[in-house]
């Protein structure tokens, strides 16, 4: 059999397999809605009102807070991998490239409008991050909004002239701080619950203390992790801030590397 005939046969087999598989998935999706059981989601809806007003944030940062830590690390790892493609941290060493001179392509309107717009985006992003526990939003969307603001100003003004200038080192520091806030808040929960209760729980919400196992306020300093807010969401806003730092730094770092790589085409 010639190679081409062989490939043709293989393509037919692949096509049939793909068709059958898609049929299976679509059929499953079609009958799916009849057999859904609420399960955990029902439980979470029942109990999360005790912790913070925004139920989605409570599920994301309290019941499944450790998963969110993992998701943050997917982002960190992906950002580092992307920078590695450009040579950062590779086994052959990294040579800092000259920042390319941007050709003047932006129009006056773009130049006039993009700075205030990116400032607005940054301000909006900060609001989204800080209001994560009461309104829709949180660290992931807020961080991406700020990174969008940075990206807008970099695209319009270029890396050298941009008014919203982050250095590479600053972004790496920010990302480190964000990740450490999340990781160490968890360790604080672990240490406090181990101290009062005997068994430690990672990411235990020490500010809210939902199971009354730690004696909040016994020393005066041990409820520092309750966010000063009438809703008393405990550590959730701090975790939001950590994730926000991380997302903002990660996405901006990718934008920066992409802009630097533009010269090489």
């Amino acid at each position, binding site marked *: 059999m010639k190679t081409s005939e062989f490939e043709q046969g293989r393509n037919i087999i692949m096509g049939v397999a793909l068709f059958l598989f898609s049929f299976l*998935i679509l059929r499953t999706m079609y*009958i799916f809605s009849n057999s859904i*059981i609420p399960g955990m989601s029902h439980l979470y809806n029942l109990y999360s009102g005790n912790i913070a007003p925004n139920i989605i944030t409570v599920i994301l940062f309290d019941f499944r807070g450790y998963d969110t830590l993992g998701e943050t690390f997917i982002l960190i*790892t992906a950002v580092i*991998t992307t920078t590695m493609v450009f040579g950062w941290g590779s086994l052959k060493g990294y040579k800092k490239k000259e920042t390319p001179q941007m050709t003047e392509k932006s129009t006056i309107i773009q130049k006039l409008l993009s700075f205030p717009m990116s400032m607005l985006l940054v301000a909006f992003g900060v609001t989204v991050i800080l209001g994560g526990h009461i309104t829709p939003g949180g660290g992931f969307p807020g961080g991406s909004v700020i990174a969008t603001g940075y990206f807008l100003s970099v695209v319009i003004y270029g890396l050298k002239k941009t008014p919203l200038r982050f250095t590479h080192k600053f972004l790496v520091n920010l990302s480190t701080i964000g990740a450490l806030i999340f990781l160490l808040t968890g360790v604080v929960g672990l240490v406090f619950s181990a101290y009062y209760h005997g068994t430690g729980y990672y990411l235990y919400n020490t500010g809210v203390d939902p199971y009354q196992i730690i004696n909040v306020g016994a020393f005066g300093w041990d409820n520092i992790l309750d966010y000063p807010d009438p809703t008393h969401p405990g550590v959730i806003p701090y975790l939001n801030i950590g994730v926000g730092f991380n997302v903002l730094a990660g996405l901006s770092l990718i934008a920066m590397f992409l802009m630097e790589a533009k010269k090489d085409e």
Partner: protein
Amino acid sequence: MFNSTLIPLMVVFPLIAAILVNFLHKKDRSVKTIAIISSIVAVVIPILTLYGVHLFSGHIRTESFPEMSKLLIPDVYMGIVYAYGPLQKILLVLLTIMTVFVIFLSLNKKLISGVYIAMIFISLASVSAIILADDFFNFFVFIEVLTVAQAALVIAVRETKSHKAAFKYMIFGSISGGSILLGIALLLGVYGLLNMTDLSNAIKAGGALQPIALTAISLITIGWLYESGLFPFHVVKSNMYENAMPEVAALLQLQSKVVLVAMSIALLRIFSGYSLLKSVMLGFAIFTVVVGSVMALQQTDLRKLLSFVAVGQAGLVAMGIGLGTSFSISAGIFHAINDVLSMAILFFVAGFIFEAYKTTKVDKIGDALQKIPLVGLVMFLATLAISGVPPFNSYQSELRIIQSAVQAGYAELGVLVILLSVATFVAIIKAFYLIFMRPGSTAEIDPKFKGTMYKTIIVVLIAMCLFIGLFPHVIYDPIYNVIVALGV
């Protein structure tokens, strides 16, 4: 103090170390210090921790939830749960010790960066999480982290071939990651649960599997094949091993086999009543064994050859698990541990040869036994070990796999296992002869390269192989007890 409190630290501690070394990426001495101290602490934590269950965020198990229609079973875990038992302990100690070796070897090189070490730490943390997780979604999250971190370790070599391999790995990774996630979503929809123990109880309580759960099983099995590097994905996986630095390839094959074991146990636990799953696993495992050993016989590059041998051996592990009896599953897991050790020696030898000769093409190097006799001796012993020659460790596990195959009524699989051992032996001993004994070498040895660290580590590892071969019950008995207790 050393109760279940320490369990999350097995994941969190390497993550903190990764963040710190990534932050200090240029300062060589501080990166070295942090990496060495943290990797040693990472070995100590699993040894100190007592067996138990860790509840994340302190969310307890509900007690007899009244509305049965919404939950299927009366009491479930509310949050994420990690379970730590004897099997997890063995796997974690093995994983952390091997990671320490790889970090030590990597730190000895020039131009090593904190970013690279950070990726090793992140992969360590994610494999630890995969071993410990009793929660399906957490399991998936860390599988994704692992895929990206492994790709980064290969990309760091910065050659066109390694970029290609990592890119292919990521593409297939996105397909398999997507299918695992869809499978988990379907299971969450029809059973409303994510915890593996609860899910298994709910499926047992519900009687026959729902048709939607069957789709979920098939989707998750696709992910299982990819993560373990079995048959349709074996080329992608062996490409990764071959294009990474050889010592990192040793780490990658270790991680794949540990994930293979962890994920198989998870699947068998959840769908214990569904026997077709085991047959599907067995079928793919047989394909992998055949394809891996045949392709290994054709190679002329030591790294490529070892990559295919590693894939074939993963097939043997999966075969033990797919046979589906307690005896065969524990034999498969035992073989995973043995194989990881001897495969690591061979990859470290390849790393030594790569550093000394700047190539691993077997037809260029010759006469090496006179120059590096110790490495040659250890490679010969490791070849014996991996082919299942007594008194080394793989003999014990391969014997058990053959016995369990015969007991399960598949005597012909025993023949296949023996053929695989022979093929592995022939493939590696050919490379050994060409590199170490054939007169006339076109490649010159680097006279400055001493490689003391490599030599120490391979001698320690071959001693470990011999120890397990002589006293197999130290490792095998706890595994067998766990598998019998799980009742899969």
